[in-house]
């Protein structure tokens, strides 16, 4: 697989009350067009990653909604895979250029969440879960709390180790002007924060956010860009967690990682920088193990010992601040992860730049792992 990334950009993430989805799409698309030097009539298709436009925004026809806004009479489609909608949109956009049907396509990941009451957002997000989980009144915080508890029991993972994930990602976000939270957190602040679903506290959880991210992908040779997608691998698993053999690992993430490493011809040890789906702090610990960066049960201690921190360890994980601190506008997240790795490999990641990074990975999860999309990017 070789799909070139011509440009990548995000809006600021956060409570963007003054910006509608149309404005966010305009802003981020203008940035990638400018960066790539392309006129908009060169874009042959638009792939929109979004989860909640239907349940919150009452807008189902999202492909045309944005192609109209952008003034592009091209094929445009919404791709929905819960919080992995963005990653899945990148996957399908990549396939579309590999097929030869299109030469240049726009991927737009976008979500508007903070205009709605938190209980409405929570209820809409539970659309990603199983019927049984909804009927019990579970929330994603509750489901990940069960996962955290299982991990703590099996591997002696501690609340302090989980809290360190938040501390790291807030530190990285403090170097990212587009992050929702740019203030560093202390371990004590995380541990003392209000309990949401024990053992998860408010600072173990990613926020509700608005934001958009965009990429321009191409299948053409000699585009002038030396950053390309070397692997694009989604996988799926049961919607609910009750049917799974093991709560301490996401099967979809393990399968997708194996596939991606095979496609790219590299292994976990080759990855310099990664963006993983830390919707809750425990999720980053499990991601590290599922991808294979650390042995099962060893990731929490490794993160605690700063082995994935900027300028300290390798691979550096969640340089953007992750979902936890950069924000989690769900449909935008998977696209933003690829944008961040693209910037890292291109050497334009600013204060959060990982030196000499040539291979990067993204890990985007939908639900509690019913979908996982892994991408590996390389620099020529």
């Amino acid at each position, binding site marked *: 697989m070789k799909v070139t990334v011509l440009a990548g950009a995000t809006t600021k993430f956060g*409570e963007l009350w003054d910006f509608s989805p149309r404005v966010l799409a305009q802003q981020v698309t203008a940035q990638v067009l400018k960066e790539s030097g392309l006129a908009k009539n060169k874009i042959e298709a638009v792939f929109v990653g979004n989860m909640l436009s239907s349940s919150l925004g009452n807008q189902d026809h999202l492909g045309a909604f944005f192609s109209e806004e952008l003034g592009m009479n091209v094929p445009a489609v919404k791709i929905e895979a819960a919080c992995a909608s963005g990653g899945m949109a990148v996957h399908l956009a990549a396939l579309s250029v590999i097929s030869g049907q299109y030469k240049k396509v726009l991927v737009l990941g976008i979500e508007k969440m903070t205009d709605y*009451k938190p209980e409405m957002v929570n209820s809409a997000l539970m659309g990603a879960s199983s019927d049984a989980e909804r009927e019990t009144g579970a929330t994603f915080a509750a489901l990940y709390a069960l996962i955290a508890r299982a991990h703590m029991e099996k591997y002696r993972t501690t609340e302090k180790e989980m809290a360190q994930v938040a501390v790291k990602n807030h530190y990285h976000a403090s170097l990212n002007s587009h992050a929702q939270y740019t203030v560093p957190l202390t371990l004590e602040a995380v541990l003392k924060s*209000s309990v949401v679903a024990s053992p998860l506290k408010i600072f173990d959880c990613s926020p509700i956010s608005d934001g958009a991210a965009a990429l321009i992908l191409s299948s053409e040779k000699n585009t002038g860009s030396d950053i390309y997608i070397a692997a694009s691998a989604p996988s799926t698993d049961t919607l609910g967690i009750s049917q799974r053999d093991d709560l301490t690992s996401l099967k979809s993430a393990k399968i997708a990682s194996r596939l991606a490493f095979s496609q790219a011809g590299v292994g976990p040890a080759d990855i310099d920088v990664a963006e993983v789906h830390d919707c809750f702090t425990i999720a980053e610990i499990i991601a590290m193990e599922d991808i294979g960066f650390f042995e099962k049960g060893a990731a929490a201690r490794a993160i605690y010992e700063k082995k994935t921190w900027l300028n300290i360890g390798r691979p550096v994980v969640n340089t953007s601040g992750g979902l936890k601190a950069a924000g989690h506008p769900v449909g935008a997240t998977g696209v933003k992860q690829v944008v961040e790795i693209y910037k890292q490999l291109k050497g334009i990641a600013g204060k959060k730049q990982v030196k000499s990074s040539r291979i990067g990975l993204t890990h985007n999860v939908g639900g509690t792992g019913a979908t996982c999309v892994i991408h590996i990017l390389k620099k020529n």
Partner: protein
Amino acid sequence: MSVGIISYGIYIPFNRLKIEDIAPVWGKKPSDVISSLGITEKSVTAFDEDSVTLAYEAAIRAVKSADMSPSEIDAIFVGSESHPYAVNPTSTILGEFLNVGHDYLAADLEFACKAGTTAMIAVSSLVLSGQIKTGLIVGSDSAQAKPHDVLEYSAASGSAAFLISNSKKNQIAQIFASTSYSSDTPDFWRRDGVRFPSHGGRFTGEPAYFRHVENAARKLLAKTNLIPEDFKYCIFHMPNGKFPRQIAKRLGFTQKQLAPSLIVDYIGNPYTASSLLGLAKVLDVAGKDDLIFMVSYGSGAGSDGLVFKVMRDAPEKKSADVFINQASRKKYISYVEYLKYRRKI
């Protein structure tokens, strides 16, 4: 012609509920809630009190302390967001109880927490235009909050009444400037027939409270050619303990100018009565020629700004009805009693 306040009266219900008694019910640490909101306790109406009875308690004190007959009142405007009736005015019930007679203009106003200051601007304008000589304005609320909503920690009860007149005799403070700033900003609302208000969380802060209060305040300073240092006191709407302190600082007022108005530290947020009770508390201590700067805030959204010049020294012997005395007469109730008094169980 000038217009001013010739008397005022306030009423704070007897019952208090401590934040430390609410927070544990919902699994919150009291210290977290108290430090986050800057509120320690709130006033609560008894089982037989509502916005009408609160309004009467404040208004009768204002009328009694004025050297005039109730029949001289030409207008009654009552601001509240908890009028007991959707249709049937609080203002006429109040007029009847006060024995005002029937030759008066009556109206209820609703604009979230600023309806009382809007009533003050409307009535003072009627006075200045010569339409009436004396009018009564009241801000009264028995504030609603859904159990487990963050509003539950702050939503309180109280009332304040002011007689506004062209009479120079016994004038307490002259109203010499006003301004307003309004926009369609959906930060907090309650539809007809719905028992509890909804709100937009953090959206109630920067784009709502701070934007409107700051704009009204800056307009008022520009209109009067005054600067914060010219004022002895400042008063801002107090939805919690933090917002008024933050906006005062942002506008260049000192905490010393603000402190005498902070009724939120004693009783929480009695919605429409908040800034008016702050004004009453300041008038309890203000001296001749002191200037007072006040900006209210009502969700939806708007702010009214008013400047007062105090025309007399505060009496040395404090009445039993001044704010500090009423606030100190209290009885603490449990969370369960609160639920009962507020008809939540």
